[in-house]
């Protein structure tokens, strides 16, 4: 069989397993937590839903969660609803569909995360390679190492707090919160786009700087450990230009673990970014989940969690599927291993 297809097939199985296992965990968690939390949620709904629809909502939820039916029937119907994209009905915004509320928030999260992750990964890798290769000759640029260390060990949302204080409160260069100014009508015009970008600078910067620190450090140490490898020494002995050895030999090989690293840490990046949204009141999924927590809106929390898990699993699959582009061994021999 074509090795690439086999490789992608394996990844596809992992993708399906991830979705299956995490959805199963998501299903069983509220049913396994002691103290019948669902009852508390129903009681809360009556209070939060207030005057008009409380009774109607409780009936709706009894039916949706089907708590009177056997667990496996509930489990099957959970999957059926999920397959239809039905994530239930919000409590705080009754009777809005959870899926609709999340879909309007999703582009903000994906936009913020994709741009920051790609930029920090590329920039961090390139700078890390250059400084790692130069070693002691890099001069003042070696100061990047302790700076990156401090940045990397700082959580996004901690850096976010500092950035808000310095660049939005103390020197009000950037807006404090939100994704665009209040009263601005969303549309494809320059004023709106500039406004959106201005609002995105600080949230993006807090994610960017922290992840840049990590990609820089890991690429640098990869390049340093590759420098002593036989094939690099051999290339040097053959008189190949240094620039070519760095980018064509060392960097090329270091990209493999660096890409695996991206796939592995994607979950962490997303988790941290969700909390960063809270600091900036940035209207993505993380902020939605935060508001749902405040208003005891469990269906919305659950829907947000499901959506993020599926998105991360898909993104991971895409990174894995693109991996053979940089690792010819998988393309030609199929020796990708276990």
């Amino acid at each position, binding site marked *: 069989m074509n090795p690439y297809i086999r490789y992608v097939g394996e990844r596809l199985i992992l993708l399906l397993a991830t979705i299956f296992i995490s959805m199963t965990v998501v299903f069983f968690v509220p049913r396994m937590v002691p103290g019948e939390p669902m009852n508390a949620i129903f009681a809360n709904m009556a209070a939060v839903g207030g005057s008009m629809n409380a009774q109607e909502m409780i009936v709706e939820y009894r039916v949706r969660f089907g708590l009177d039916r056997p667990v496996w029937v509930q489990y099957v119907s959970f999957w059926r609803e999920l397959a239809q994209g039905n994530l239930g009905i919000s409590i705080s915004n009754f009777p809005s569909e959870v899926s609709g509320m999340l879909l309007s928030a999703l582009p903000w999260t994906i936009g913020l995360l994709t741009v920051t992750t790609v930029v920090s990964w590329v920039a961090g890798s390139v700078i890390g390679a250059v400084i790692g290769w130069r070693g002691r000759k890099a001069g003042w640029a070696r100061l990047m190492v302790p700076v990156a260390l401090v940045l990397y060990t700082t959580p996004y949302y901690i850096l976010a707090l500092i950035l808000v204080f310095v660049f939005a409160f103390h020197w009000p260069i950037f807006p404090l919160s939100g994704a665009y100014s209040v009263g601005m009508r969303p549309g494809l015009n320059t004023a709106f786009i500039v406004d959106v970008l201005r609002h995105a600078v600080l949230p993006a910067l807090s994610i960017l700087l922290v992840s840049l620190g990590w990609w820089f450090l890991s690429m640098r140490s990869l390049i340093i450990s590759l420098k002593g490898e036989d094939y690099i020494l051999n290339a040097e002995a053959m008189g190949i230009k240094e620039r070519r050895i760095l980018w064509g030999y060392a960097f090329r090989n270091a990209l493999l673990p660096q890409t695996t690293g991206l796939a592995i840490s994607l979950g962490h990046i997303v988790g941290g970014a969700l909390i960063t949204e809270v600091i900036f009141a940035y209207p993505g999924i993380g902020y939605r989940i935060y508001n749902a927590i405040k208003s005891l809106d469990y269906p919305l*929390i659950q829907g947000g969690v499901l959506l993020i898990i599926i998105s991360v699993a898909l993104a991971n699959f895409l990174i894995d599927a693109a991996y053979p582009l940089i690792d010819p061994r998988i393309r030609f021999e199929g020796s990708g291993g276990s």
Partner: protein
Amino acid sequence: MAVAPVQDTIVESHKGVLWELQRNRKFTIGGAIFLAMLLTALIAGMMIDPDLRKSGSFPQRLPPGEGTLFGTTSLGQSVAIQLTEAIPNSVQVGLIAAAVGTILGALIGFVSGYFGGKVDAVLRILIDVFLSVPSLLFLILIAALVRGVGVMAMALIIGAFAWPSPARQVRAQVLSLKERGFVQVARLSGMNGMEIILIELMPHMFQWLGANFVNAFIAAVLAESGLSILGLGPSREMTLGMMIYWALNYSAIFQNLWWWWLAPVITLMALFLSLYLVHIGFDEVSNPRLRTEG
């Protein structure tokens, strides 16, 4: 095989791990900062009159220096006194969660790597799945249901999702160790699986587990502060995450009460940095190839 290329160094350096650790500068500096912070908080916490912990014990919104060391909150609490409670609590969450996660992970990794076959196939998929899913999301789901948990319960919940990374590493190590001569000899001499794991393999894993433990520690403190900022923290106790949560809740940033939010922020950064230095120290001792310039 996804086996890390470090196996050769484990066996030879195992006699002097502690000696090597205390010689490692990153390990000692990181460890010293960490211990200094923890001990200061613990000792100061014991000397403080418990009545001063109550809200309203101090004038509200005092800047640092005027009567209290790090200023006071909008509720008339001393930020410094809050820190003496928050640091040990956050460290406690980290320690318990890391212990639970590392032990669970080591167990799963040992079983998966040692027994192989179908057990390994199933466990490997589980490890890969839980490694790729952001565990913070599962934590949010659980914490949203069991609101108002204490520090201890919080630590256990976080620990229950901290096993995948140690499991993966331990599995890789066991795979590479179990084909070694001394394990084969042990098997031929009639030791059973569990005995080999405990007597022959465990001693080689200590430094790996050490590095993993510190890693899990960092992740757990991170998870605690994240959950707390989301409003899912131990609301009746003080942790570093809860300090930030309350500061944000009373919009400390916009009221220019910078000392309120900056104190836990700087403490968390110092905590993470010191723990990370300890982690690098562990890594360098177990993998001498990492000991490069600078």
